[in-house]
């Protein structure tokens, strides 16, 4: 049978001191880009560390590319690529050293040509040690490495946070190129999605260790709308329709569920960031 899901989490649970992640059930179909969003400390990195076997779950099952990660052989691990918020390699290495290291590490799977092309595209210097690379360059190198061993699943953990818009734009292009192959899947975790939001097929939202939803982005964005109301107008709205609100001196800004408000109420489009902010604030009150 053909494998259809890139990621399957079942009852995944992990306790770290006072923080509890999960239980999380999540299914990511292959061939798509998923934005894994939430506040700092919501549990995004913990989830990704669990996926990468850097942490061991207290409970639950993790399947990547249809296989339990406990049964992964080194050969199978070549199908998984990952980029963290920084490139965790000895800083005395030059680009050539890094390339040699990966050539030896990935053996047959390593694609020297792809790597060289990406390096040229990013204009990365090959004589400097990575100590002298800027943060953006380190991330570009990390991404080039991740994309050069024919992986089917790419995990990005806060990889583009705090980078300038031009570099983020490059990343966007690379992700879209990567996803041209329908066997490829991307999971991007971030507390700010910004431009990456545009290309995400699904949004998974995690809050205080709990997965609030995992939905197709288009449907998600179409479900909600934002508008400004007076306090009297707000009183007439069904309480269930109100996702979150920002009261100010001259009225209230509210995010509403379109299906539960009258059709003639004009609502503006929402962004994923709006949804995130209003949901978190809505819960606080």
């Amino acid at each position, binding site marked *: 049978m053909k494998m259809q899901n890139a990621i399957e989490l079942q009852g995944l649970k992990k306790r770290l001191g006072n923080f509890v992640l999960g239980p999380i059930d999540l299914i990511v179909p292959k061939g798509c880009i998923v934005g894994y969003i939430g506040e700092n400390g919501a549990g995004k990195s913990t989830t990704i*560390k669990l996926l990468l076997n850097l942490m061991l779950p207290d409970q639950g099952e993790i399947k990547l590319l249809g296989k339990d990660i406990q049964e992964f052989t080194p050969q199978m691990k070549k199908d998984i690529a990952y980029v963290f918020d920084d490139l965790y390699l000895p*800083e*005395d290495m030059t680009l050539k050293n890094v390339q040699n290291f990966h050539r030896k590490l990935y*053996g047959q799977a390593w694609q020297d040509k792809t790597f060289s092309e990406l390096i040229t595209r990013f204009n990365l210097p090959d004589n400097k040690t990575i100590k002298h690379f800027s943060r953006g360059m380190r991330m570009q190198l990390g991404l080039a490495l991740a994309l050069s061993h024919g992986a089917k699943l790419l995990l990005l953990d806060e990889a583009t946070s705090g980078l300038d818009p031009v570099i983020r734009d490059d990343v966007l292009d690379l992700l879209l190129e990567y996803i041209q192959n329908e066997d490829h899947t991307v999971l991007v975790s971030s507390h700010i999605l910004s431009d990456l939001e545009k290309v995400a097929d699904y949004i998974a939202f995690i809050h205080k260790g709990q997965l609030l939803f995992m939905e197709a982005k288009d449907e998600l964005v179409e479900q909600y709308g934002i508008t400004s109301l007076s306090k009297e107008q707000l009183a007439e709205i069904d309480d269930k329709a109100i996702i979150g609100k920002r009261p100010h001196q001259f009225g209230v800004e509210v995010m509403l569920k379109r299906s539960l408000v009258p059709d003639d109420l004009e609502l503006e489009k929402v962004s994923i960031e709006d949804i995130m902010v209003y949901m978190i604030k809505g819960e606080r009150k």
Partner: protein
Amino acid sequence: MIALIYKDLVALRKALFSLVFIIFIVGFITVRQGNIMTLPLMFILVPLILLGMLWGSDTKSNVDQYIIPGPVTRRTIVLSRYVFVWIVAVIGTLFTILLKLFLRDGILLEIPWYLIAVTMPLLVTAISMIQLPLMYKFGAEKARLIFVVLYFVVFALFSYIGSNKELIAKFMDKLILLDLKIIGLAVMGVTLLLNIVSFALSTTIYTKKEF
């Protein structure tokens, strides 16, 4: 595995050069002073220095987090570190045997080569084998602290032995009665046992570690 050793060598590149340089200087001084035995004994320190530096570099770059999800098992990562020590042990042993071949006089000449071949690995690896599981368990900093305590214990042990010389004498008498080859085998056995137990311990600790 080769990739991991390569990474270690690159990370230590500068340190390795200065180490070879230092060994040459020390060698030069000891040869002039006629105290040639110091040279092989230096190899006892080499793996400790290198391991210390490797741990420093690894901790700084957080490289474990990068290689564990990669196409290696955790066991291989631990093994690479042991192989590193073993390479130093092999170099040290070969070096000492060569030294014996080229020397005209001194204590080295009296020791048969096979005894050197089994003793040097023990001398070179012994401390590392105790230190490695400690480093994996407690991290480099705490492991060093534990080691300082260990030094004191060893020191106390030596001073106890020193004040009971007759015990040593008795032991030595018995030892001399034994065949040198049997001693050699015993040393080899101890080395193997120490290395295997240490590796098993480190692997167990490292597989349960979280990053």
